[in-house]
């Protein structure tokens, strides 16, 4: 079967993000329930929800043994996207200025938070100046790479930069499906009659075999979490490290295949986890 993933030049990122949609997948409630059912069913009642997102899919769905703790490296995306908003919307002139502003804001916010808070603001308020500087450095690199990759003048409508993950809690399947998008752009369908969206997902490294599944899962999460039961028309992946870019046009068939792919991975993970427990 040929891959539905279209590789594009990174120089075409903006054009792909803003091109009119050729297909807009909308669902009735029943169709959406049917789509959810493709994600399988869980026999592990009472257990916590399995988190399924691009990170856990890549790392085999295993839950990290150590609790999450902020580091400068982990802060780069949050700081970078906040900075990008400031630059794109003209509040700051450069990513460097924007990240510094955002860190200052978070530090002011964080000093009032309890010391045990797990928020980035609390971390930045309590960490050493060196770690804070390192977080700024990470954020500047992230924001600059993304800022330089997009032709911001082409946007006639403001894109959403760094909105919260789309989250679909699927109790019957025992999973929490999350879809990340760094940029969400409003686009029209080809006739101009319907407004839909394209989503840019920033990925690490190079295009790999699982890129289609990862993009599809982000689209599936966005669809299941959407209030109007509409799928994003297009997912665009950008890999700053390699300059690669790829497009996945979202159809009903793509979402179904994605759901089945996730279901298989979840089943494999649960089987393997159960076997380890038994051993």
């Amino acid at each position, binding site marked *: 079967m040929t891959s539905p993933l279209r590789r594009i*030049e*990174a*120089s075409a990122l903006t054009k792909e993000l803003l091109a009119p949609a050729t297909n807009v997948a909308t669902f009735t409630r029943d169709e959406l329930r049917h789509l959810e059912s493709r994600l399988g069913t869980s026999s592990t009642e009472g257990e916590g929800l399995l988190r399924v997102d691009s990170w856990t899919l890549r790392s085999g769905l295993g839950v990290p043994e150590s609790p999450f703790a902020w*580091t*400068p*490296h982990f802060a780069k995306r949050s700081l970078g996207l906040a900075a990008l908003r400031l630059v794109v919307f003209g509040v700051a*002139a*450069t*990513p*460097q*200025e924007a990240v510094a502003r955002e860190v200052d804001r978070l530090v002011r916010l964080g000093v009032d938070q309890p010391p045990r808070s797990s928020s980035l603001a609390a971390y930045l308020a309590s960490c*050493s*100046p*060196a*770690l804070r*500087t*390192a977080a*700024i*450095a*990470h954020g*500047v*690199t992230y924001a*600059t*790479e993304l*800022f*330089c990759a997009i032709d911001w003048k082409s946007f006639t409508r403001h894109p959403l930069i760094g909105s919260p993950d789309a989250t679909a809690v699927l109790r019957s399947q025992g999973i929490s499906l999350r879809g990340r998008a760094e940029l969400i752009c409003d686009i029209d369908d080809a006739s101009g009659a319907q407004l839909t969206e394209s989503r840019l997902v920033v990925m690490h*490294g*190079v*295009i*790999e075999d699982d890129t289609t599944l990862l993009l599809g899962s982000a689209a599936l999460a966005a669809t299941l979490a959407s209030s109007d039961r509409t799928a994003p028309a297009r997912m665009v992946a950008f890999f700053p*490290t*390699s*300059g*690669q870019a790829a497009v996945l046009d979202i159809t009903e068939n793509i979402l179904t295949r994605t759901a089945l792919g996730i279901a298989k991975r979840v089943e494999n993970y649960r089987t393997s986890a159960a076997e380890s427990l038994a051993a």
Partner: protein
Amino acid sequence: MVLAERTVLQATEPRGLTALAGDQLLDVLRGPKTSRHPIDTGLAGGLRAWLNDACFEARGDQVGTLVVTKKMLTGGTHVRDSRLTYEFVRGAIVATLFRLFITSGPSENPYADACEVLFTEPQHHATAAFIAALNERDRRGLEREVRLHARNLERRWPTLSPTWMPRTAVSMATTLDGGQVHLRGMADLVIGVSRRDLPSICLVSIRSTPLHHAHRDELRFLGLIETLRSGVPPFRLATYSTLTGEVLAEAVTEDLLKNTVAVTISAIRAQGAPQ
């Protein structure tokens, strides 16, 4: 811990290079404006095709991913030797220090600050363990050296305008041979806004040792990766020694990139079986 291959800190003859500082250094990083020419839009594609052909010939039907790094260009087949040396660890600390310096200027405690940051980076766990295992005398020696590099940076490194979009520790990669061969590297500093029509970025590599020609070759490899990943070559490559203040800078030409492709192909051929 016994320290092998330790470089003794001393004034080093710069072999025709001199220590640069402030505006002089900035001028060398920027290069003459006349040296920037519109790109040959087919260049990156041609270089990639050449590399792909060579990968196919060198690897035949071997399966598995071969990762090519700058060290493989200058270190022959010793790429799997992952033992840490004192120089490597000092270099990692100085590179981190440089990152902090570019971001927020000089630090009062450069060694402590750089180590603290280094210890949080997952890729530097082995470096952190190396430092933690140093005896007190060696640790103090390392700290003295790092302070010297910090002072040198403070005295010599120019202020970069934020409008030049300086960004640090920029990872770069590209794939060849249908994803079977990865070229990977990291630039300590990238200056300039990438453009599609004109080479406009400068890649900077930081060294904590006196400079030698292998450093230039390693940075040329990064220049090649940048050309392949973005389709546009950098306009300038600069390797800077935080020890001596020397800088090896050059304009990126078609010949330079072609030579680097040839060196990269030699490295791929020398690797034999995939990792």
